């Protein structure tokens, strides 16, 4: 009997319950979709289905903040649901519901939400992932004809969903326990604090944003986007909460403007936290899209970037190989350019080309005055790598070893270099620049979290002569351009190098130090296609989240809006005015998030663009692309919400005409 009663009570709230379930399904589908796409990408990258640990690493690297935002969204939706159900909970409490019955009542409801969300979300995510899989199989048909899904996305989705729903339940449950259902339902009004107007919060928000701006172009911003992203998102939350409070408080003091806006702004005074938190989620999603996903996407287009590989072959040879080079010139008419060089290993698991200043000057025409213990670094970065940290994690005095890398170079454990290694901080970087001279050769690294590059380190002539004699590894850089018989030449070089040249310690295929421009170009194209596809999928996925949050909020607020519309009708407001007011109210959250999220994201992205030190025209291109993306996102959001507002107006109008019970 009790179960029947509970079900009947729940049935009367089925619309709100289904809204929560729908949100749960969406959130789970997002989790499944992101993990499935991560798994596909991993397969394309390494050629086998992803194992759990690397998959978690990949997904976490990109989706940590979005998952936190989804958790926050789930909590807000649950709290909104609790607010609507508070009347039922209160009556049952007053009637003396037993603890076991309360758990049965609330627990079964919540279990239903979890089961429906996880099952429905996984199914929906699976369908979405299948669609994307087919598209990706088309894009990467040169790599594979079948991309398997595997079981890892299912397992990971289950784990992440249970964390999100579990944390959501625990936090909501604790809020009800600590504050009481009345306070939770009141949404911040209980203590008379409808608005958060705090100077301390506002200043903390500004300070956090400044730190985020600084972090974006210093160490933490150059090794990844997590730290500046988290700081900026935290600061944005504080700024929106306190700034909005200030705006609404000040508006109340200006009576004329206040009463003019009150018709569509009243609920923001009434349920400030709910509206502001929802707007924040949208703003934060927009921020993540623009700041974290847009730039890598721009870096990857166009996917073919031949300017990064100006030569056919770059081979780290030895001075004794000159005779072989002459024979190549004679037989195939290849153009050969040689530079005296040495190998330099750095503590960031990199191996670079060292050369004397005079050689560099003769090659580039650039004059560099260096003392014995000074070096000049030429970073051979493509657009994607620009703005990242320099030698030895950006240290001004990098740990270096003169000679090539080998097993004996480091004593390290758990990626921490231990005392006893041969890397020393002997040289100071006097200056550096970004310039591709031989090519952007990302070393095939030993499962490293970052790429390592073949950069050029310039020494003073005297120092170069002093250290060259004792340096092991290649000592002659050879640049070969092949006008004809490409395959024959490369085959011959590879065969010769196998017998006489240094092995690349970082190459898991144990190749010699030969960088083939064409092959690198093809690999780079594949990598850029991979990067652009995954970033585009991420952008679209998060943009779907933005639209979903806004529409979900509008649906959730429908009851209040319908009531208000009825009030407008009965107070004799014209239809035109009614629609205008309702439209403003529905669009308010979207406007707040666009006004807060987009400018912050654009400025931080702009800062990152300038920090890349790209040629001027690329700066302008990036800024223009970013502006187009921001305007496009704003336009789509505005259009969708406008249509949704119109639909809500029509729905309420119809409901009002039919005399539907509120």
């Amino acid at each position: 009997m009790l179960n029947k009663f509970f079900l009947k009570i729940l049935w009367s709230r089925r619309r709100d319950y289904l809204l929560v379930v729908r949100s749960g399904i969406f959130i789970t589908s997002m989790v499944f979709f992101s993990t499935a796409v991560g798994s596909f990408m991993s397969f394309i990258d390494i050629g086998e289905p992803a194992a759990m640990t690397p998959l978690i690493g990949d997904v976490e690297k990109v989706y940590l903040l979005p998952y936190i935002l989804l958790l926050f969204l789930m909590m807000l939706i649950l709290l909104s649901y609790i607010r609507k159900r508070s009347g039922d909970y209160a009556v049952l409490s007053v009637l003396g519901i037993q603890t076991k019955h309360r758990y049965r009542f609330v627990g079964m409801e919540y279990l239903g939400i979890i089961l429906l969300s996880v099952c429905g979300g996984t199914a929906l995510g699976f369908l979405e992932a299948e669609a994307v899989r087919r598209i990706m199989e088309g894009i990467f048909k040169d790599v594979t004809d079948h991309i398997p899904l595997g079981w890892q996305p299912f397992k990971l989705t289950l784990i992440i969903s249970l964390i999100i729903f579990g944390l959501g339940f625990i936090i909501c449950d604790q809020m009800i326990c600590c504050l009481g259902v009345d306070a939770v339902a009141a949404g911040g009004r209980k203590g008379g604090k409808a608005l958060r107007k705090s100077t301390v919060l506002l200043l903390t928000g500004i300070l956090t944003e400044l730190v985020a701006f600084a972090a974006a172009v210093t160490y933490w911003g150059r090794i990844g986007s997590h730290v500046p992203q988290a700081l900026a998102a935290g600061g944005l939350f504080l700024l929106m909460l306190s700034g909005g409070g200030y705006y609404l408080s000040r508006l109340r003091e200006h009576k004329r403007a206040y009463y003019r806006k009150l018709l569509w702004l009243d609920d923001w005074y009434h349920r400030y936290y709910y509206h502001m938190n929802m707007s924040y989620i949208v703003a934060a999603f927009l921020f993540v899209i623009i700041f974290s996903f847009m730039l890598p996407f721009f870096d990857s287009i166009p996917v073919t970037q031949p300017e990064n590989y100006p030569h056919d072959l770059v081979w780290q040879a030895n001075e004794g190989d000159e005779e072989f080079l002459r024979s190549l010139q004679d037989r195939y008419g290849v153009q050969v350019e040689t530079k005296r060089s040495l190998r330099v290993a750095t503590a960031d698991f990199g191996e670079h080309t060292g050369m004397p200043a005079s050689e560099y000057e003769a090659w580039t025409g650039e004059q560099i005055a260096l003392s014995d213990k000074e070096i000049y670094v030429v970073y051979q970065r493509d657009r994607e790598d620009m703005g990242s940290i320099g030698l030895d994690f950006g240290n001004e005095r990098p740990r270096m070893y003169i000679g090539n890398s080998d097993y004996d170079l480091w004593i390290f454990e758990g990626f921490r270099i231990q005392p006893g290694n041969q890397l020393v901080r002997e040289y100071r970087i006097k200056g550096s620049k970004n310039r591709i001279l031989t090519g952007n050769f990302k070393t095939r690294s030993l499962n490293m979290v970052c790429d390592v590059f073949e950069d050029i380190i310039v020494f003073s002539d005297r120092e170069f002569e002093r250290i060259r004699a004792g340096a092991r590894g290649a000592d002659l850089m050879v640049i070969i351009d092949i006008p004809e018989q490409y395959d024959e030449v490369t085959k011959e070089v590879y065969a010769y190098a196998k017998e006489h040249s240094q092995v690349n310690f970082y190459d898991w295929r144990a190749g010699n130090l030969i960088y083939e421009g064409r092959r690198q170009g093809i690999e780079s194209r594949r990598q850029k296609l991979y990067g652009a596809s995954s970033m585009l999928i991420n952008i679209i996925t998060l943009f779907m989240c933005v639209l979903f949050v806004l529409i979900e909020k509008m649906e959730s607020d429908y009851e209040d809006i319908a009531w208000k519309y009825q009030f407008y009708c009965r107070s004799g407001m014209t239809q035109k005015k009614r629609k205008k007011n309702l439209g403003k109210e529905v669009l308010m959250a979207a406007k707040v998030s666009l006004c807060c999220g987009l400018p912050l994201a654009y400025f931080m992205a702009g800062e990152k663009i300038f920090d890349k030190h790209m040629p001027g025209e690329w700066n302008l291109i990036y800024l223009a692309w970013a502006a187009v993306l921001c305007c496009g996102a704003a336009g789509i959001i505005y259009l969708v919400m406008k249509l949704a507002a119109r639909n809500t107006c029509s729905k309420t109008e119809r409901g009002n005409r039919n005399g539907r019970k509120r």
Partner: protein
Amino acid sequence: MGGKGDENILDIEELERSYYTDSADGEQITYSVLKGLSFQVKAGEFIGIMGTSGCGKTTLLKTLGMLDLPTGGNVRYKGVPASRILGDRLARIRRTELAFVFQDFYLMDSLTVKENIMMPLILNEDNPEKSEQTAVRMAKQFGIGPLLNKKPYELSGGEKQRTAICRAMAADPELILADEPTGNLDSNSSMLVIKALSHINKKMGKTIVLVTHDPKVASYCDKIILLKDGMILNTLERNGEKKEFYQKILRQMVKL
């Protein structure tokens, strides 16, 4: 000695209740709603609490019903401090010994009138058939027998309130706390409701604490506590006829 009328169901000693809010400037503001009230509620009494709006009537009733805790003083329910009655013990008392009737009825719109009345019994895990019989009997007794299968939104205000009274009476509680039960009703419906409450007190021997600002409703009570600014202004005992008591209340209300 030891008769039913001598037992104190509620002992209220120096009861205080304050609310704390923050001003726009962030300073804490304290609102003292109840300021040191002391009185007793004996078994079988019909006590009315009167006062102007905002004088603390509802706060007092909530505190008596253990829906709210005092910030000072004591409320003892059958000799036990309310602060010690928690969790399942409190839930049991609410199910079996204490019932509320609210101005806004608080009926479940999804359930029928019969199911609403049965709710406290079902929550108490009573036999469903017996519960149904009790609900039918209660509904007939309070004149809503023909409405048993209707939903609350199909009822008039008076019918809703009588449904709420039936629900309150279903578990046969000792104490009924009614918060302006006639506040949303027209005069005819109000009379039906107050007569029903009077019947519950006189014929069924239940203790009732009723909050009202209507002197006509209050005249049905045995004792009136007049509140002003969170303090007891006066206590009126009914010694004679209802009409006489009504006039007495009216005279006192001028002082409020």
